[in-house]
């Protein structure tokens, strides 16, 4: 029946829980991702936010863009605070202090807060099995503090701490595969989401909210300021990232992989790279090498899907 769970742009919820007037840059796809997440989760939600772009833009004191209970916590421990909220709610409901009902608990952070600074906290919250959602809004660098590299920055991307010059051309390491780290925690639900595919996005967020136990979502979010792309291309870049294999869309439910928006013929990575200033120093050889590795990883992903789906 799941496949008939149709979303259409005219049927998606009208209410916004991240209100207009937030201070995101023009064309910020991360703000769009956050808006869509909270459209699905709705009113009965408590959010814990790590420091990062999405905290800065949504809570310029004494104002707030939030229409739900929202906490700002330190850079690293949003997952711990989220798990604390969940445990607290559970205790209060058991003691009969608040009525029993489903309250979504969401903790989120940027890629720096998730992949670098908060990794062990995220790992701990997921390992303890709290019924919560963790969302990583991955814009591939520390954009809030001025575009410093994180371990989620892709190979060769120029940032202020991995500048592209004659000796070294941008980031020297491959992007850390955070989604697979979370899959290795054996949690019920892990998925990558991309706001350029809003219906797939909303279906996955809904699934993450409904599933019992921890869920991890990794959201691709284009950052026009940090990537040096035109603000109107945010959604197109998301699509190109999927079509070139740079950000495959897949979900892992109880260890079973399934890949969405399967790519048969990969688009040349150059189409994706040339729209971003952070990649302008790349040579054709470097692009070809990156594409080769991306395709290899994509094929591995398809193999994993095939293996875990055997006997279905």
């Amino acid at each position, binding site marked *: 029946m799941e496949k008939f769970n149709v979303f*259409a*742009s*005219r049927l*998606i919820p*009208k209410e*916004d829980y*991240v*209100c*207009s*007037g*937030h*201070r*995101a*840059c*023009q*064309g*910020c*796809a991360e*703000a*769009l991702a956050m*808006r*869509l997440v909270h459209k699905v989760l709705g009113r009965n939600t408590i959010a814990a936010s790590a420091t990062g772009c999405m905290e800065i833009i*949504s*809570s*310029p*004191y*004494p*104002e*707030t*863009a*939030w*229409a*739900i209970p929202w906490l700002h916590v330190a850079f690293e421990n949003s997952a711990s605070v989220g798990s604390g909220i969940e445990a607290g709610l559970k205790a209060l409901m058991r003691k009969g202090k608040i009525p029993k009902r489903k309250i979504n608990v969401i903790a989120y952070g940027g890629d720096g807060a998730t992949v670098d600074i908060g990794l062990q906290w995220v790992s701990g919250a997921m390992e303890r099995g709290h019924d919560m959602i963790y969302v990583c809004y991955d814009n591939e660098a520390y954009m809030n503090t001025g575009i410093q590299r994180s371990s989620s920055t892709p190979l060769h991307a120029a940032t202020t701490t991995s500048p592209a010059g004659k000796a070294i051309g941008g980031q020297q390491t491959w992007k850390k595969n955070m989604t697979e780290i979370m899959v290795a925690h054996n949690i019920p639900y892990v998925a990558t989401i991309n*706001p350029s595919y*809003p219906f797939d996005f909303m279906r996955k967020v809904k699934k993450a909210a409904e599933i019992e136990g921890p869920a991890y979502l990794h959201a691709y979010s284009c950052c*026009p300021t940090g990537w040096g792309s035109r*603000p*109107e*291309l*945010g*959604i*197109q870049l998301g699509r190109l990232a999927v079509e070139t294999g740079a950000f495959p869309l897949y979900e892992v439910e109880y260890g079973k992989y399934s890949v969405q928006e399967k790519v048969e013929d990969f688009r040349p990575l150059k189409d994706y790279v040339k729209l971003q200033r952070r990649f302008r120093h790349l040579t054709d050889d470097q692009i070809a090498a990156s594409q080769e590795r991306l395709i290899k990883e994509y094929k591995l992903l398809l193999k994993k899907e095939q293996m875990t789906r055997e006997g279905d």
Partner: protein
Amino acid sequence: MAKQSPAPNWQDLALGCATLEAGSSRYQKTGDWRSSRPIWNFEQCVKCGVCTVFCPEGCLKMNADGYPQVDLDYCKGCAICVTECWTGCISMEEEKD
């Protein structure tokens, strides 16, 4: 005149410096960041609502007739709606004065 952002003094602050009014960022009209504004040609519009989904600002709503309506108080003019509209009925017009 637009309502001004409340500027509390320290006696007015809630415990823990909590912000008690939901969605108060609306006091800040971010529309003045805009250098060009989107214009709809409703003759071509098919009321699909794609622009309302992709607006990062959430300032696009469907009006009673089913056409998208932009809240220019908050539109930052990113033109995502222009690139994503597949009928091509939205265009950007430079802000005068």
